[in-house]
């Protein structure tokens, strides 16, 4: 799950914000876009050569390589590497990919069994080995699983540079030798007559595919990579009748899949890989639907839809926080923040003695501050500075619980407690500190009128908040709260 979204912000503004280089997850977006642009070129040939299962099997083999090297490292056979998790994973990924390709190529030459059977068996074996190596390595299970899930979101700038370099070279190779790849794929006899031994071009094509898959798996995970390899090309196929259009349209659809998948992941708070793959499958259905109508109508439909999305997207905007005067200086009850994450969100204890006592069960954890406390304090302070007459519900009755963001329930609670005026309700759905220096936040904020339950103002914060200076979890929580409150009242 990635990114940032505010309820009420337009499609266009959120999309443009994502595309901005200053956007926190811009490296991740760029990485996904690179994969989306280049992978379909390779996938096109895999599809045309009817070796599409190779695109499924090789990423799984690469994933087995990743978990294998982590297991070796955990058992002490491999030293800890300064380049980090991805570096060591990349070695395993490359090694296994090329070993797998070599073995599959050898069996193909020897014509042992049927081709699909070999690929299916290799896929099953690689999947099983991936799980077994993870099970053997309980210490690094979460890290390995995260890597295999394809945490593109955690791409650092250095990793992005590496990704861009590798995929840039692959792109150059695909463009440079496109004629040879086409000829050897389409008519091997003619390729032999005109270019000599076609094995050179086969090897080169599979080398480029292998490098892309090995690097792509470690950066994006097998699912997303397989999606980028085949789905854009499958979507492009029914729409074109020549090879050059097929290649560039595959690339463009891959890029669109990457960008809109990223946007959807941000907007809907969904994991990136499955979102992209689902979007890619939708593109295939859309392509076949468009093929049924004439090209002119299809083009018109696309232009019309784009215009509608743009118009609708620009039409909605974020409503600003009303002025205190406009609300006739009514009392604003700032309710306790509701925690719907299922986690305690407590800040770590700073006093070691108290921590020990808490661990021993001598004292409860109530003395520790939580994200909810910090958030309400900051909200209250900010609202007071803006001239609101802020009161806390506990001041009238200490038994007041946290209010949910649902206006109906919030108003019901307020009426039961005889509160009148306005209530500021907040509900946290996610507040997760990521090891890579940011906190993922998903929270709703509303001002509700107690008389009629109408919502005067609302905003949803759904973003990855950067906490670069945080050295521990407590600091990350504190910094993220400040950033969220600043963001909430900005503009």
């Amino acid at each position: 799950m990635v990114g940032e979204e505010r309820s009420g912000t337009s499609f266009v503004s959120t999309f443009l914000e994502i595309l901005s280089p200053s956007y926190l997850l811009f490296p991740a977006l760029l990485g996904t876009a690179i994969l989306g642009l280049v992978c379909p070129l390779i996938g096109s040939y895999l599809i045309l050569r009817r070796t599409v299962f190779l695109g499924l099997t090789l990423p799984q083999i690469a994933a087995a390589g990743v978990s294998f090297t982590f297991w070796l490292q955990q058992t002490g056979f491999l030293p800890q590497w300064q380049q980090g998790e991805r570096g060591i994973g990349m070695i395993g990924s490359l090694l296994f990919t090329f070993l797998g390709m070599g073995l599959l190529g050898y069996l193909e030459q020897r014509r042992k069994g049927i081709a699909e059977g070999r690929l299916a068996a290799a896929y099953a074996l690689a999947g099983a080995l991936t799980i077994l190596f993870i099970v053997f390595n309980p210490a690094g299970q979460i890290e390995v699983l995260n890597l295999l899930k394809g945490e593109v979101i955690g791409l650092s700038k250095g990793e992005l540079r590496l990704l861009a370099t590798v995929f840039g070279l692959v792109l150059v190779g695909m463009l440079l030798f496109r004629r040879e790849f086409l000829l050897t794929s389409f008519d091997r006899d003619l390729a032999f007559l005109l270019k000599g031994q076609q094995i050179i071009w086969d090897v080169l094509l599979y080398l480029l595919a292998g490098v892309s898959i090995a690097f792509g798996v470690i950066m994006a995970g097998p699912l997303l990579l397989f999606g980028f390899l085949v789905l854009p090309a499958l979507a492009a196929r029914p729409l074109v009748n020549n090879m050059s259009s097929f290649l560039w349209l595959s690339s463009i659809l891959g890029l669109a899949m990457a960008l809109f998948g990223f946007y959807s992941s941000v907007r809907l708070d969904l994991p990136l890989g499955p979102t992209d793959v689902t979007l890619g499958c939708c593109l295939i259905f859309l392509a076949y639907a468009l093929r049924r109508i004439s090209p002119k109508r299809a083009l018109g439909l696309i232009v019309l839809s784009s215009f509608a999305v743009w118009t609708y997207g620009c039409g909605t905007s974020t409503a600003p926080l009303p002025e205190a005067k406009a609300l006739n200086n009514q009392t604003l009850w700032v309710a306790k923040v509701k925690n719907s994450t299922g986690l305690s969100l407590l800040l770590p204890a700073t006093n070691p003695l108290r921590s020990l006592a808490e661990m021993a069960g001598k004292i409860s954890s109530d003395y520790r501050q939580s994200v909810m406390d910090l958030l309400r304090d900051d909200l209250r302070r900010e609202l007071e500075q803006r001239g609101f007459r802020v009161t806390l519900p506990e001041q009238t009755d200490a038994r007041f619980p946290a209010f949910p963001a649902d206006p109906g329930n919030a108003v019901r609670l307020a009426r039961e407690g005889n509160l009148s005026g306005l209530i500021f309700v907040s509900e946290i759905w996610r507040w997760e500190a990521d090891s890579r220096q940011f906190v993922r936040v998903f929270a709703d904020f509303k001002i509700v009128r107690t008389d009629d339950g109408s919502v005067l103002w609302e905003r949803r914060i759904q973003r990855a908040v950067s906490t670069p200076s945080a050295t521990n979890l407590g600091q990350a929580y504190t910094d993220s709260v400040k950033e969220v409150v600043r963001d909430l009242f900005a503009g």
Partner: protein
Amino acid sequence: MDRLYGAHLGAVRQLEGMELGHDIDEIQSARGRASKDDSLPLVSLQNASLGYDSEPVLQNVDLTIYAGDLIGLAGPNGSGKTTLFRAILGLLPILSGALSRNCPLSNFGYVPQSAALDPQFPLSTAEVVEMGAYGRVRSYKFFPTEERKQIGKVLDQVGLRHLAGRSFFSLSGGQKQRILIARALMVKPKIMILDEPLSGVDEDSRKSISELLVRLARQNGLAIFFSSHDIPMVRRVADRLLRVDEGRIWWEKKGVELHS
């Protein structure tokens, strides 16, 4: 050495022509050609044995092809026509005997059966024809303008320039064959080998393809070697007819069959 070998083969061919009872005009035309082309055959097979995995499909094959020849290869399905073609094109190593070519493989225009090509590929007819020039164009270069013009010329030759932008696999069987002939012409060949160019096409297309083959042999001086299982049709089109069946190959001349 080549010159000596060529002279020898030239003599053999003249003898072969007389043995087979070719028309005097044809022999004369062959003589004229021999003086012009150094009498070197483009392809020569001597006592060759052809097959797969050491299993011979055709044995004792003797064959020479000269520039301007229009040779038909007729025989039932599975008799070894494609095997012979593949051996000539170097796609299949010969099991025994001798094979010599006096022009590089890139001068061979090969027209496969259109059904053998995968319709999964989104290819326009122009792109299919363009492939014929891939042997000349370097990987890192843009496709040259002269070659683009050449695509138009060869499409004109087969009379299908208006279909340049159409999807190759949406064409009729006859149109596909003519496009594949255009692709072979794009190679700028000295010899064209066509595998069943008249199968799966309608009568009009058969006629136009036959006329095209004759024209290419007569006007362009190309050696044309094509196969078909339709023996009467091959007799009508080809100057010489090579029959193949049950592992044997022999020349036929107007109803007279002679073993080579």
